[in-house]
């Protein structure tokens, strides 16, 4: 017993030493700030986007949405037990996918446009072929021991999931089996985002941490702290060198991957609502963040100022997305509607 205690004490000492080392290394490169770097940049002024379409069709709260790579189709998930695939140019519903479990929390479109995936309190990720005559269940990925909070396709043969069981997982869709399990978070994983080159991904969790993972090695490379509550939303900055997070602590933060720390925060004393979702405009200059206060607030990512708001929903904005061509923003809400703005 004494030997165990001695070992634990030694490990704790090493742990404390390493944490101090990391903090010192971060401090050593903390020679400036984003406000300093963006001082000479012209303001974007007031960003006033117009509501172009309201998509009606769901009968209950919308929990998730995801754009197709074609920047025209979009899939939404509601706790009315349906996935709807929309043609956003016409506002028409193209496909309705009935769900076995209505408690859906996440939805994803495969880059090919052939498949969609969803999951939630059933702890599973179900993949559907939507190009068949009627939507066909391709796979039921069943191994998580907690709810499915987020899923993203790498291709038609691989998908990444994040779960309330604190792990993320890479699945092989040909076999339906887990390829790699990513363990390191100590709270429910709430959100994930894939890097453009698909070599890494980032996750945000209820332990208030964001983590960068090597997709092929299965290891956690970096951990970002600072938030004081659950991270609900996470996204890569378009250059791939920074990460934006949104949290229940009512703030968003930008962490630079190469400096390994927060470079700017986005908060306002008048904003007392948690951030549920976020998406960036194509240049990375604008952050569209959905909040519990029924609005999507627009932030200037470089200057840290609020530059606009998308108002119109009658309940929490639960999901936000910008298509690949950057031509607009879609917001989804607990009020059962999706809105398109540009």
């Amino acid at each position, binding site marked *: 017993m004494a030997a165990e205690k001695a070992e634990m004490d030694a490990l704790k000492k090493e742990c404390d030493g390493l944490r101090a080392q990391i903090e010192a290394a971060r401090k050593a*490169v903390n020679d400036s700030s984003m406000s300093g770097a963006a001082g000479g940049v012209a303001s974007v002024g007031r960003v006033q986007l117009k509501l172009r379409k309201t998509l009606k069709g769901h009968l209950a709260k919308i929990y998730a949405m995801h754009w197709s790579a074609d920047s025209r189709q979009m899939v939404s998930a509601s706790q009315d037990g349906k996935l709807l695939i929309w043609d956003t140019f016409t506002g028409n519903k193209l496909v309705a996918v009935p769900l076995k479990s209505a408690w859906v929390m996440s939805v994803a479109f495969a880059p090919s446009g052939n498949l969609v995936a969803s999951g939630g309190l059933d702890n599973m990720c179900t993949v559907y072929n939507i190009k068949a005559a009627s939507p066909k269940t391709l796979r039921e990925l069943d191994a998580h021991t907690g709810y499915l909070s987020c899923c993203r396709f790498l291709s038609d043969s691989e998908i990444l999931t994040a779960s309330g069981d604190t792990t993320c997982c890479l699945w092989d869709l040909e076999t339906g089996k887990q390829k790699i399990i990513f363990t390191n978070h100590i709270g429910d994983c709430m959100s994930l985002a894939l890097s453009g080159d698909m070599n890494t991904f980032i996750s945000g969790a209820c332990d208030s941490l964001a983590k960068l993972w090597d997709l092929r090695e299965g290891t956690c490379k970096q951990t970002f702290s600072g938030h004081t509550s659950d991270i609900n939303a996470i996204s890569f900055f378009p250059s791939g060198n920074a990460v934006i997070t949104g949290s229940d602590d009512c703030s968003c933060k930008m962490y630079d991957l190469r*400096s*390994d720390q927060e*470079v700017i925060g986005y908060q306002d004393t008048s904003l007392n609502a948690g951030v549920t979702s976020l998406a960036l405009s194509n240049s990375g200059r604008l952050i569209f963040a959905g909040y519990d206060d029924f609005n999507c607030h627009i932030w200037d990512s470089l200057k840290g100022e609020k530059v606009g708001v998308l108002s119109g929903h009658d309940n929490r904005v639960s999901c936000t997305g910008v298509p690949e061509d950057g031509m607009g923003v879609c917001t989804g809400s607990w009020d059962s509607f999706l809105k398109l703005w*540009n």
Partner: protein
Amino acid sequence: MSGRTCSSGHVVQAQKLVDQLRVEAGMERIKISLTAADLVRFCQDHRRSDPLLTGISASSNPFKDKKTCRLL
């Protein structure tokens, strides 16, 4: 289950934490003055190809409801 098995579980966990911190401590960090400037440069270089910044003309707006033209 013996008391020893319980404690060595803690040791394994603590060792994992140390190993993870070693990985994270080992990275080379770049000065914020350089990385922030790089992020600013990216935004500036891409602002002309960001429709939500530049604006979208009515004729090329895919989401705008087109008014139909009626020949009288």
